[in-house]
């Protein structure tokens, strides 16, 4: 039996000219829909998890660890000063492949306003970074105020704030909301210093120059950016870490390794160089394993859906026993008949894939609108129930499916093309595997037994 004859027979199994509403045909259609529907959550979950991981990774790499980090440490003979750090940053900038280099002093403190206090991760950096550094400029959104310190417009309130003697700080959106701060408001940072073996607190007042957000509440809840020179004056050397952060064109390229060694050679004594993947190894491994686990769990749904193909093809082979017997009387082989049923199963899986993949992608791309729509419907119903119970509407608190105070402001979506290709290939392989036993069974039909029964 030739391939062409198997294809012709499979064509009539999938697209019969008569008895289009047979039970087996309905089962095949059901299997196709099941696969399609099971693929939708898989694609959505993969796109969202990919978006989250990409978002978090790009922010951690771009805004926190940077691509390469040169950590400095003090020794008895050598103490790092602000001038040394700036000069090291300048020196490293000259290395081929480095696109940006800036010094940073990190420490912790307590941010305090009239409303309350909260812990803060103090990052002392040249504040020009917010306009001059590609990552800072693109990944931070200025919620309020102005980050352009160099040339503020003459009469703006931000300009007034910046020009005051009180140093300027840029703070994360969540910390600002916790402390009820606006652009131009004043707040205090409480840091500590050791004087003659005693811990002494130090209070420094700052003006909020801008409220910024990187989109991730966890990071926005901690960061307070202050000028580098101010950092050196308020953060104790023993409780802070000074480093030079370096950016390259592509942190995922092999070139990073070369630049890493060049930096190591040039950084000199009392320094240690780290790549971004060394600094964030735990997060990165956690993201990867979460992604694989999610994909596996969601793929189980597709596996269950594929079982429908098995039962649909068993039904189809029973329904088409007569045709199988006739074909065998005219020279059809076991393998040829089995192949026709495999093609049928494959086409059912492919149909499900062609249905589920675009639907899943459409759902993913519009997930924020969908969540908003569901929220609106839920709130409409909940408000109605609330009023029906005799309550007044002003007392009603809205339902939020995605609480921005918890983690995200928006659901990030990044289409994982490689994973989608793996999912597609996996789905087709699964459908082939599910079709195998019914196909073999169909190939084993005996014409004589069939003719006696029909």
């Amino acid at each position: 039996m030739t391939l062409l004859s198997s294809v012709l027979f499979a064509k009539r199994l999938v697209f019969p000219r008569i008895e289009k509403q047979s039970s087996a045909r309905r089962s095949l259609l059901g299997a196709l829909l099941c696969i399609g529907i099971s693929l939708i959550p898989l694609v959505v979950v993969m796109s969202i998890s990919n978006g989250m991981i990409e978002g978090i990774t790009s922010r951690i790499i771009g805004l926190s660890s940077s691509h390469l980090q040169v950590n400095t440490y003090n020794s008895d003979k050598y103490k790092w000063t602000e001038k040394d750090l700036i000069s090291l940053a300048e020196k490293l900038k000259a290395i081929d492949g480095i696109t940006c280099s800036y010094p940073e002093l990190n420490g912790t403190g307590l941010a305090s306003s009239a409303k309350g206090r909260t812990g803060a991760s103090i990052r002392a950096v040249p504040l020009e970074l917010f306009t001059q550094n590609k990552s800072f400029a693109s990944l931070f959104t200025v919620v309020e105020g102005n980050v352009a310190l160099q040339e503020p417009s003459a009469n703006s309130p931000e300009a007034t704030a910046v020009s005051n003697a009180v140093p300027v700080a840029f703070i994360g959106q969540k910390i600002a909301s916790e402390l009820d701060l606006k652009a131009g408001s004043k707040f205090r940072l409480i840091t500590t210093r050791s004087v003659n073996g005693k811990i002494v607190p130090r209070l420094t007042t700052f003006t909020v120059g801008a409220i910024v957000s990187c989109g991730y509440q966890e990071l926005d809840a901690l960061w307070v950016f202050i000028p580098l020179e101010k950092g050196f004056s308020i953060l104790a050397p023993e409780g802070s870490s000074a480093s030079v952060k370096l950016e390259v064109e592509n942190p995922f390229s092999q070139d990073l390794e070369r630049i890493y060694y060049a930096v190591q050679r040039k950084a000199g004594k009392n320094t240690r160089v780290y790549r971004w993947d060394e600094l964030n190894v735990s997060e990165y491994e956690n993201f990867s394993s979460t992604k694989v686990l999610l994909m596996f769990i969601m793929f189980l749904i597709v596996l269950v859906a594929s079982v429908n193909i098995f039962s649909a093809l068993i039904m189809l082979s029973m329904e088409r026993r007569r045709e199988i017997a006739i074909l065998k009387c005219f020279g059809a082989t076991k393998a040829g008949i089995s192949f026709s049923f495999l093609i049928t199963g494959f086409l059912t899986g492919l149909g499900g894939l062609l249905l589920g993949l675009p639907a899943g992608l459409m759902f993913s791309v519009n997930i924020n609108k969908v969540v908003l729509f569901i929220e609106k419907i839920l709130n409409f119903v909940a408000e109605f129930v609330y009023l029906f119970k005799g309550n007044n509407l002003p007392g009603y608190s809205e339902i939020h499916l995605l609480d921005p105070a918890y983690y995200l402001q928006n659901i990030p979506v990044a289409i994982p093309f490689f994973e989608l290709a793996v999912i597609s290939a996996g789905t087709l392989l699964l459908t082939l595997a599910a079709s195998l036993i019914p196909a073999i069974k169909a190939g084993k039909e005996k014409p004589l037994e069939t003719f006696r029964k029909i």
Partner: protein
Amino acid sequence: MMNNLIEIRGLEKTYVTSGEQLTILKNLDLSLPGGVKVVITGESGCGKSTFLNILSGIDSVTAGSVKAGPYIVSDLDEDSLASYRSSFLGLIFQFHYLLKDFTALENVYMPAIMAGASKKQAEEKARELLNEVGLANRFNHLPSQLSGGERQRVAVARSLINDPQLVLADEPTGNLDPANAAMIGELLFSIVDRYKKTLILVTHDVRLSALGDLHFTVKNGTLVETGKNL
């Protein structure tokens, strides 16, 4: 002996049902040269169809050997049987057994495509055969759109598509009215004659018996020659 197309020696067929043995065919020997038209008659249940089923490889033998052309049918595995049916045999049944989702043309050319012909070649040959059985205007009709006689004519055309040496017909007119039965019978004999095929026909139709070269009847499980028109 060497030139015989069919050589059957000591054929026996026994069915075991509910512990009981029922021997349908026994000690059956037959030698047939190529190109003859054989008619087999006999009472219902005497084993005529079983004999054809064994010869076509649809049923197996209990004992003995069946040789058709180069094939020792009784020894063939399933894949070799497929090749035997595809290249050596043409089958016509009492019921037409056409594929319900395939048009008349497709029904005729499917065995040719299964045998390895290109679609173009197969279609060309199928058109030619359908023309010959008088169905030139029915190429694209489904079996459900054809009359009983027309369906059986499609079945006759299909049996010849792979240019088989042997055509086996099991009561091909059994389901037809007398007029159609006579027409199909004559058509079958004339077309087999024209293409110089060997025909073994099982029938109850007395008029068809007269058209054969050799007449046999199945008696006590074996074939008994009852007449010759050679």
